[in-house]
């Protein structure tokens, strides 16, 4: 079940200032902005990797201050640049991490791994026993996606997940990601405008630790804000 996420006057000294934002259950939102604008910190507030110095973060209307973070994290997928795969564990063991923590029976874990890897074009029979270092960057990131999504999370947090990949692999992975992404609330941090427009239906623009624009993806490029125009100009050929 997708979860709603809400920020109520959240600040993280000295990075974020007074963020107010509500993301409905099942919505796909992209955070864009320049480096250091506060996108990643805002994302990391959702699973408690960053803590607010003021204000409240709520998931399904429950403040994180009163939530068991371990439980929340097990139902929150997290995909980051460089994948963060465990180098000492095989592809299968990596993917099985969260279901194992949740106490799924082995047969269920295997079936789920098989299913999600097939959708990502990485057959379990061929890739299951390999170690991450033997995979290409794109393959590693596919495993990262599988690992984040296998347990059907309520929220999916993506922090520049395709940032380090070449443009063709990047496009393939965006497509694979879009095909998989139903039934989950998505927050997707990127500084690539075309990527944001592809993966999200709503765009939130950060600048200097504040939200300066929040609009449907379809209307983003026509916003009169100078920073929006700079993003549009930078993205066009």
């Amino acid at each position, binding site marked *: 079940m997708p979860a709603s996420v809400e920020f109520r006057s959240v600040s993280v000294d000295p990075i974020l200032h007074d963020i107010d934002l509500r993301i409905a259950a099942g919505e796909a939102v992209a955070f864009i902005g320049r480096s250091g604008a506060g996108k990643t910190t805002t994302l990391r507030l959702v699973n408690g*990797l960053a803590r607010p110095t003021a204000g409240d973060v709520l998931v399904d209307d429950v403040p994180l201050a009163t939530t068991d973070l371990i439980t929340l*994290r097990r139902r929150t997928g997290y995909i980051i640049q460089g994948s*963060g*795969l*465990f*180098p000492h564990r095989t592809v299968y063991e990596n993917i099985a991490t969260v279901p194992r923590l949740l106490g799924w029976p082995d047969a269920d874990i295997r079936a789920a791994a098989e299913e999600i890897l097939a959708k990502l074009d990485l057959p379990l029979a061929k890739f299951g026993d390999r*170690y991450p270092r033997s995979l290409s960057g794109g393959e590693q990131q596919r495993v990262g996606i599988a690992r984040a999504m296998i347990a059907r999370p309520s929220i999916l947090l993506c922090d520049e997940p395709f940032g380090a990949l070449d443009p063709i692999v990047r496009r393939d992975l965006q497509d694979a990601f879009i095909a998989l992404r139903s039934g989950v609330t998505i927050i997707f941090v990127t500084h690539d405008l075309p990527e944001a427009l592809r993966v999200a239906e709503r765009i939130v623009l950060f600048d200097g630790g504040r939200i300066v624009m929040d609009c449907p993806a379809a209307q983003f490029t026509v916003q009169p804000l100078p920073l929006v125009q700079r993003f549009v100009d930078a993205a066009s050929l």
Partner: protein
Amino acid sequence: MTAEIIRATLEHIFIVAIAVGVAIIAGIPLGIWCARNARAGGVALRIVDAIQTIPSLALFGFLIPVPFIGGIGMRTAIVALILYSLLPIVRNTLTGIRGVDPIVLDSGVAMGLTSGQLLREVELPLAMPTIVAGIRIATVVGIGVATIAAAIGGGGLGTLIFRGVSMVDTRLMLAGALPAAALALLADVVLTFVERRLVKR
């Protein structure tokens, strides 16, 4: 003569094994604790470091008058060796844990591993080659230092060496020195192999 060499060698192995064993049991948790508590860990590491700087014969000298753990004999030798073995093990545990890629740790936390699970499933396995390197250094150094322990009646191969020196008997000296050198080389080869196996994965 042969029987005596074998007996001294076994005694030597016994002393080093006990000392390194205790140092592993104490040193790995201490290293983990140092990694978790930056400031207190720094102080602990400096103390362990200082012990290592004391010349071995002097350390044996210091321990002799200490009640319960000191005195003349094997017990004092083992205590001194434990103190010596501690540093490489503590330091390498700390270095190994600190060396884990922060992105890997980050994703472990984000998947909902508790701090205990993170330690057991991520930090220790990834630090293990470095920790084994520390155990290897502790063992090799320990085999060397243990020969000096004979000076305070600690037993082991040093007994033969010291006796050989005082009797100006080269054969007797070598009867202690050669097995000691062989032991150190053997320990180094075996533990290096273990270390490599761990890195490979």
